[in-house]
């Protein structure tokens, strides 16, 4: 069917070793969603403009639609499915829920992953830093107000832990 020979990739996703076969043209987002069943990462634009597919790749938030899956050999990847620790929600998840920081929810996974990456680096992030750092994630429902407040609240919880 496909003209391309598949590539074998070994990587770590949410702490577990994962092996998959992919075509060279497949993005990481496609593999996560279509091959591995990790549909929490969303496709909003498929060209890096909306952030709905954000994952943490070797400690950095990236748009997984812009990463070729063959490039993640040996990498450490964290997706929205791996943010909660067993049944305990991460502070960003808890604060999004309590602060009503989501409406339709399609951008939420990307925001959670990007927020977690930001707060792990800078739990004291100011409103300005949050707005700058998360400006690659589009939300069309909330007007961002409650998202910014939820990230601030999560930062405070993480500082207290």
């Amino acid at each position, binding site marked *: 069917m496909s003209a391309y020979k598949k590539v074998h990739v070994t990587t770590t996703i949410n702490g577990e070793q994962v092996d998959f076969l992919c075509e060279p043209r497949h993005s990481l987002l496609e593999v996560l969603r279509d091959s591995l*069943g990790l549909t929490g*990462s969303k496709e909003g634009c498929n060209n890096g403009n909306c952030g709905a597919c954000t994952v943490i790749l070797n400690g950095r938030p990236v748009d997984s639609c812009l990463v070729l899956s063959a490039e993640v050999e040996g990498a450490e990847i964290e997706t929205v499915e791996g943010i909660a620790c067993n049944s305990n929600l991460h502070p960003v*998840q808890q604060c999004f*829920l309590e602060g009503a920081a989501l409406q*339709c929810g399609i951008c939420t996974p990307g925001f959670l992953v990007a927020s977690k990456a930001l707060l792990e680096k800078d739990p004291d992030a100011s409103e300005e830093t949050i707005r700058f750092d998360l400006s690659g994630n*589009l939300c069309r*429902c909330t007007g*961002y107000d409650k998202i910014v407040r939820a990230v601030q609240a999560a930062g405070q919880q993480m500082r207290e832990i």
Partner: protein
Amino acid sequence: MTTTQYRVIGSRPVRHDGADKVTGKAIYTADTKLPGMLVGFVLRSPHAHARIISIDISEAEATPGVHAVLTAADYPNVENKMADLGEGSINLSYLSSNCMAQQKVLYRGHAGAAVAATDVHIAEEAVKKIKVEYEVLDSVTWVLDAMKEDAPLLHDDMVTDSMGEKASKPSNVPAHLHFEKGDAAAAFAEADVIVEREFKTATVHQGYIEPHAVVADYNEDGRLRIWTATQGSFTCRQQTAEILQIPLGNVLVTPCEIGGGFGGKITVYLEPTAALLSKKSGRPVRISMTRSDVFEASGPTPGSFMRVKIGAKNDGTIIAGEAWLAYDAGAYPGGVIGPGCMCVFSCYDIEHAVVDGYDVCLNKPKTSAYRAPGATQVAFATEQLVDELAQKLGMCELEIRQKNAVKEGSRRVDGPVYPPIGLVECLDALKQSDHWNTPLQGPNRGRGIAAGFWFGCGLKSSAACTVNSDGTINLLEGSTDIGGSRTSIAMQLAEVLGLEADDINPQVGDTDTAGYTDVTGGSRVTFATGMAAYEAGRDLQQQMKTLAADLWDCPADEITVDDDGSFSGNNRTLGFKELAVELFAAGEHLVGRATVSPECPTNGFGAQIADVEVDPDTGKVTVLRYTTIQDAGKAIHPSYVEGQLQGGTVQGIGWALNEEYFYKDDNSMANASFLDYRMPTMLDVPMIDTIIVETGNPEHPYGVRGVGETPIVPPPAALANAIYNATDTRMTELPMSPPKLWKAMQKHQAS
């Protein structure tokens, strides 16, 4: 103002679907995967207007991995017939042609064929192998150009219907609407001050982050199952069944979680195509639009041209209004000119007014609703003129609005007389707000205000509640939940039954299980489906009273239900749960149900304050502070009401300052991506302060009005007024993007 104390209503519980949505477990349409599922891809027109001479699909069909190729020839012929979509209606023949072009493509992006293959890449490559021969025709994308006598005609058989009178010659103007009250011409002659301007607005898109998607499985028994991102599963079922000419009962539509809609996910685009590909291939088929498909081939909201005039007496009383409005309908008739006409003077009690509106077809995608469809454009015009009038009269812009604001008994230009409404209360709240009372200082800064209105509709909703053996409730309703409505509906049921929000397990049913429910639109869900849940709760209480009478050995009419939901009779009192447990143990299995169809609009009014700073060198506008005030009637879940206010406002800010469809010389869209169609990011906006006014809606048991749409109406006008106060430059064109504002400022300075 409402003063009743509630237990659940007005509290802020975590939404029922929240955990699913913060863990990635919530299933949206594109997340759905069926065994053997194929993936579809749609061939789209590269031309804005062209006749299809021939289509050759042979090479695409022969591609390994391709299971079906579809063209308009596979679509059944659909007669010219109007279908009611709940909030508006559409001609089915046009609807079908919009899903798959017949004979002509009418806009760039118009679907011409489709492929189903084992993966999306194979399908996309096969689409490229379809050979279409086009005869390219002249095209038109500006509303005034499309109205000219010599404009390229989109539909040879379309004539203007002017208030029931049909024209003799074909044109691109399917409808002319006319409304009047009093004698506008005579009133203008008596006016002391008149202001008049022309305004233009660009086509904008709803910009939901989830692209349209569908999964269809056409079974051998003729049963069609559809999983889709829709604002209304029942209207999706109806449209799909009518286009495919199959019995309604053969179609099951399951609404998946939906990633935003704002009015743009009511019309079907992909469903019939996915269904026919599934029928042809014998396998389930999923199609997702690409982002550029969404921009080019779903339903943006109209660009417009407007000429509006108002006249007032020296004391500030507005006595006359006149409006001439032309709105894009896109490629097929039936845009949102109607509500545009009804909303142009909807905030002011003007005794004499005349409004003419034109629905105009042109070579753009068929327009759709977008949050208060048609109202934002006219507010941009009228709310600026009201400011100008105030300036000429030496009045404060708030004072002139308060003096002329509509109230109970005011009649709108299209006829209806308002029941109790809350514009005056919103303006009072604005006057008392911290924002209004904090002076704005600094160079190049200005403050603007504007009012806004949206009808809010009732339509039809159903709800059923099943009582579990422990007295908790499973609530089944049919409103697609786009922003937390499961919870706002469940809270109303919890309130009436004396339960907690957590005691209710709300579910959005599919078209086989839920009672008929109209679209999630028109700001209606918390109002009408909430009312259905309330009535279902009352139904349950009636049944329980009858059964308790047997149990307690007393007449049913002696049993009372208290405000806390407890039942009393024959010297006994039991809470809802306790009685439910007893009844279940006695073998009674309870289901409460209700259908409602409230007819009175909910009449949502609001007012907003914007502070801006304009960079004199670039024309870039920075929003410094923003306050959105709205009459919610009664806020069921205040956090989600605030969310509606904030989200609608920021969409309005985007519409005002940046968003627009750019067209190239060949009338194709130049900016069909989120990079170039520039929606507000987090960095572009400040916190949006909200003030919820609660005047109580007498048509709803808890006083709810719809809140979803009104917040998008005032922002372009409020920002234009703020920009004027900052720069002395009156902006009459949207968006007020840096190049446009800079040029306008230059022109103003030169004059």
